[in-house]
């Protein structure tokens, strides 16, 4: 896209909390904005764009958040497409800056999913919504876990993907979490531990599912030109894509997910190929999410995802390192997780990841998934580079 390299992530901040019964949602968001502005070397006075969405906010929560921080932005975007929202917001902010709608845009998320006791995976889809599709699904007991489980079941049937291959994803994420002091769960686990954990919705075990935490984070996006004069090395936005997938009037191919389209757009617009990607952040709501996403992004052929994630390939020191923070499976998953994908990708590109730093990390991909693969979902892909 003509936007390639014109804008940059100038500041990032991941709130260290994983449980914050003493903090409000907006406090976590405000502290995250403060952290990201400090990282960039900017102040609240520089902010003239705001992007946010959330599970704890009302539909017009972005107005309330601007009220909370006394912001009067020239650009706002509250696109709410689930966990991928903040990956999409990053692209929207880049487009807005490039179009001259604003100069410095913050993308922010916060949630108290854990301390507020939201049943994110096992209750969130069970209640009836008002949309037409909900009337035909709600009566049958869908849950987020159940919706992903049906994708896993079909994948195993079609391609012989094994529970051990799914478990390998969780084991690698936990290994990465052990190197992240902020991660919620840091004790190593084995494939046997995953398989021995109870079934939540077959074939997915407890340890195939993301954790529930509190948390938040923020990004500061500005023009590449302005970013070059700021405190940290700019992380350039090279390309992005987004889309949705759904039941397709009852005729969907369920193993084709949004990543196929959003990924293709992001690669085309960035002008890079799969071989150029040194590191990836792949939304890991469930172990099957990672396998299906890697296939649909084109890092391996459809059906080969199980073999692809095996043998330590996904480790920080493997052939295809992903989710070095420990991911949603072990580090944090406060209802939606997309913002952390961009934060960790930026930190890797700045060489700030300490023991879990990926060698020679120049180009990174972040892919967010929102909603539920087995019902309907969004995908947003972002490609970032440090040169």
């Amino acid at each position, binding site marked *: 896209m003509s936007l390639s390299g014109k804008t940059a992530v100038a500041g990032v901040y991941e709130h260290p909390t994983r449980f914050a019964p003493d903090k409000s949602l907006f406090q976590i968001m405000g502290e995250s904005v403060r952290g990201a502005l400090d990282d960039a070397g900017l102040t609240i006075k520089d902010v003239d764009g705001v992007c946010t969405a959330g599970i704890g906010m009302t539909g017009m929560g972005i107005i309330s958040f601007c009220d909370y921080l006394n912001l009067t932005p020239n650009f706002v975007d509250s696109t709410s497409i689930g966990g991928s929202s903040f990956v999409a917001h990053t692209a929207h902010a880049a487009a807005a800056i490039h179009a001259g709608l604003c100069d410095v845009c913050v993308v922010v998320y916060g949630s108290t999913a854990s301390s507020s006791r939201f049943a994110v995976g*096992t209750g969130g889809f069970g209640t009836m919504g008002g949309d037409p599709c909900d009337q035909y699904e*709600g009566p049958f*007991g869908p849950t987020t*876990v159940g919706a992903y489980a049906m994708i896993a*079941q079909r994948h195993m049937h079609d391609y012989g993907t094994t529970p051990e291959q799914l478990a390998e994803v969780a084991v690698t994420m936990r290994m990465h979490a052990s190197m992240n002091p902020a991660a919620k769960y840091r004790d190593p686990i084995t494939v046997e531990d995953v398989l021995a954990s109870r079934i*939540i*919705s077959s074939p997915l075990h407890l340890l195939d599912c993301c954790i529930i935490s509190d948390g938040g984070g923020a990004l500061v996006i500005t023009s590449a030109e302005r970013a070059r004069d700021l405190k940290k090395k700019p992380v350039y936005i090279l390309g992005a894509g987004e889309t949705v997938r759904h039941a397709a009037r009852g*005729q969907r191919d369920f193993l084709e997910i949004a990543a196929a389209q959003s990924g293709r757009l992001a690669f085309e617009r960035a002008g890079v190929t799969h071989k150029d990607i040194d590191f990836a952040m792949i939304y890991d709501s469930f172990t099957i999410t990672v396998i299906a996403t890697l296939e649909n992004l084109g890092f391996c052929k459809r059906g080969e995802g199980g073999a692809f994630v095996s043998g330590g390939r996904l480790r920080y020191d493997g052939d295809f390192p992903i989710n070095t923070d420990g991911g949603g499976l072990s580090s944090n998953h406060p209802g939606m997780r997309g913002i952390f994908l961009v934060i960790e990708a930026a930190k890797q590109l700045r060489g700030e990841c300490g023991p879990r730093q990926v060698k020679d990390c120049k180009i990174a991909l972040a892919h967010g998934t929102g909603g539920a693969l087995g019902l309907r979902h969004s995908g947003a892909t972002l490609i970032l580079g440090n040169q």
Partner: protein
Amino acid sequence: MAENKPAKYSKPLPHLDEENRPWWEALQRHELYIQKCRDCGDVRYYPRAMCTNCLSPRTEWVKCSGRGKVYTFTATYQNNVPGFRESLPYIMAYVELDEGVKMLTNLVDCQPDQVRIDMPVEVVYEDVTPEVTLAKFRPAR
């Protein structure tokens, strides 16, 4: 899996409106329909007021045989929603109807370990309230 029917139905119920009412009324008569576009022939589930292929409002209702096969499924062991919490484990599935569309449903009269993808199934009608009947499926006999 035998469904224990509680005295009062406590699971979520659909909102009936002018657009979807004919479909729910057919289920009350224990008939299952999908829609077909009179202009381009595209079939669709769930029912809606227009064809998603050509946006034509000219709709034909096609009566289904009630037979199909399991496209995918899951047995759910944890769901905190009242009604489902009391029915664990239950089997949710996409059934691919012989008429060519996949619909989300529950499989009944079988255990989780008896279900296989591609297994032939047939519709059973569950009258859950005076207004609402649900189309569920059991292994074909």
